């Protein structure tokens, strides 16, 4: 944990692709951190859903990823940078039901094509960019100030 000069808490987490045995650990840690500092439970649920989906995308598709949680008095910022295959067509990937998951993942109950749409639904602001063959970057903002929420 680091405290930067502008009243901001920052946490970094590393995720390894294919590591199903630790999958969910980062989103659980994020939830616990937010509970500890007394964030409203409705916000925690949204942050937990968004971070779980982001984390699982790295586990399922990428080689590795770095997850950063920044907490300011106004908002939660969840940034995820991964090294992986990237996404060819982001519009298509954002469509509910679209998935490139393998049969094995689908049997486990993944690959419903709900991951990115779930992130978007729970974020006040969601930016996604990707370079095919290199990786994907997600920026998820959840406002703590009620007036700025969507």
């Amino acid at each position, binding site marked *: 944990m680091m405290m930067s000069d502008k009243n901001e808490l920052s946490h970094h987490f590393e995720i390894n692709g294919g590591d199903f045995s630790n999958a969910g650990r980062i989103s659980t840690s994020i939830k616990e951190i937010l509970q500890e500092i007394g964030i409203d439970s409705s916000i925690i649920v949204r942050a937990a859903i968004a971070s779980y989906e982001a984390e699982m995308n790295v586990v399922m598709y990428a080689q590795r990823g770095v997850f950063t949680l920044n907490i300011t008095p106004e908002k939660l910022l969840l940034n995820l940078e991964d090294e992986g295959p990237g996404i060819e067509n982001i519009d298509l990937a954002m469509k509910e039901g679209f998935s490139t998951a393998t049969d094995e993942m689908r049997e486990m*109950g993944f690959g*419903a094509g709900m991951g990115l749409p779930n992130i978007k639904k729970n974020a006040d602001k969601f930016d996604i960019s990707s370079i095919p063959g290199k990786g994907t970057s997600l920026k998820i903002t959840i406002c703590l100030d009620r007036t700025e929420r969507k």
Partner: protein
Amino acid sequence: MKLAETVEKLNLKVVTGEENLGAEVTGGYTSDLLSDVIANSKEGNLWITLQTHQNIIAVAKLKDLSGIIIVNNRQPDEDTLQKAKEENVPILISEEMAYEVSGKLYELISS
């Protein structure tokens, strides 16, 4: 309704999380898709599923579910049991199928 009473009425076998049987069950959520459960289940829900692999534990933990009912007498994987113990997540096994378990739980909770 307490989890212990649900266990008794639905004739469930408690495999892990015995110490959490005092938890309040707020309802049920029946699904085998993890993203669906993550998005739509509510705190205190009992999750009815046929999934037996270890990743169900993180989902239950993350959404503060009261427990997981595995249907059709399917047996959880060894690493699932291990994780459930570490995280204190109740795993309950039913011999019945999801349709029957869901119907009975619905009756119980709404009565």
